[in-house]
């Protein structure tokens, strides 16, 4: 089976720096995820997640600062409200909601970032390619 293709939307201040921290510490994780930097996870509208799936992504991640640590104070509060709703919608539409992963990774948590990458890639690898399920 083919390698899962994953798009990760990461906030600039915490998660993206967390990913950098993982790199600086030379932590290894699967290369499947392609990271897209956005200022805040609150910038990620559900449409962007859906469009990524439509483009053939097998999994989409939205990572932000921990609740209470958002660089923009409450930007990630919107993420915390919006994304679970989107997961529900995916579920109702017959799309495995696990394909969308929401998590919080701080700038200091390189190790956590690598673990999140490994776990999610593993989880998505267990699912059939998304495009195939859509045929």
């Amino acid at each position, binding site marked *: 089976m083919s390698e899962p293709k994953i798009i990760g939307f990461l906030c600039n201040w915490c998660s993206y720096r967390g990913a950098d921290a993982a790199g600086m510490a030379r932590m290894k994780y699967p290369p499947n995820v392609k990271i897209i930097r956005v200022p805040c996870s609150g910038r990620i509208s559900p449409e962007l997640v859906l469009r990524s799936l439509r483009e053939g992504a097998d999994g989409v991640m939205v990572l932000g600062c921990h609740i209470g640590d958002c660089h923009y104070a409450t930007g990630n509060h919107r993420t915390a409200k919006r994304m679970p709703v989107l997961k529900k919608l995916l579920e109702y539409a017959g799309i495995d909601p696990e394909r969308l992963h929401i998590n*919080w990774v701080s700038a200091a948590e390189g190790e956590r970032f690598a673990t999140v990458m490994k776990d999610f890639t593993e989880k998505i690898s267990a699912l059939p390619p998304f495009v195939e399920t859509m045929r």
Partner: protein
Amino acid sequence: MTARVTALREVIEKVLPEVDGVLALRSGPGGIVAPYLFGKEHPEELAKLAIWPKEPVPEPLKVILRAHPDAKLAIVCRGCEERGIVELFKHAQLSLNNVTLIGLQCERSEAEFCRCAKPFTVHAKTFVGEPLEGVTDSLTERIAAMSQPEKLAFWKDEFEHCIKCYGCRTICPQCFCNVCALEDETWVETGRLPMPNPSMYHLVRAMHMTAKCVACRECEETCPADIPMAVHFRLMARDVKEMFKYEPGAVMEQKPPQLLVLEEGEYERTGLPH
């Protein structure tokens, strides 16, 4: 004329002298029903007062108030339409300062037709008919109970019939944007039928209906392909109710959940030992 129509007519006649018009349904040429603004000038038109089939009245109310912001209006609305009006108000699309709501409680058969959970008004001070309890939406229950592959197969089959008339979007009282994201090539590909899966049109629309859908089922009724899309909205509405304690149109003062910041403690902090 049924007793219910007579009763409604009496209420309208009572209200009419105090307002510039009463928005309700009228049986027009060929018996075709449409929203109509009953005025003092032509009281004889009330003879053609109609109540079924229901037509979306929140939108005409908005149109009239846009053109005549100071008009004193009354509107005959069912439960769903009342909720629609309240949501339009919450989204700053119309003002209710000069609007009198006249409730029209649905009958059992009507509620069943709409699979309606709340076939009654809650804000209207005057209403016709007795509020009935809601009916169980067996279709929604059936789809909710499906396995994930079954759901996927079901919706693929339904969406395959979609001719992208945008009727569900156009008729929806909650779709009031000037420019619709569904007409943007960035989100919905144009010129492809049957639409490719996953259906960006239907998923984006369902997402946009979150915490807004008032369960009037106008979308399903107007759909030439009979797609039961309101099922999505209704399932989402349950989650919104559970997550944010919000029911569209229910409480006038309650802000839509989009507007609220997380209450501290309501969400689990993760990772860091705060």
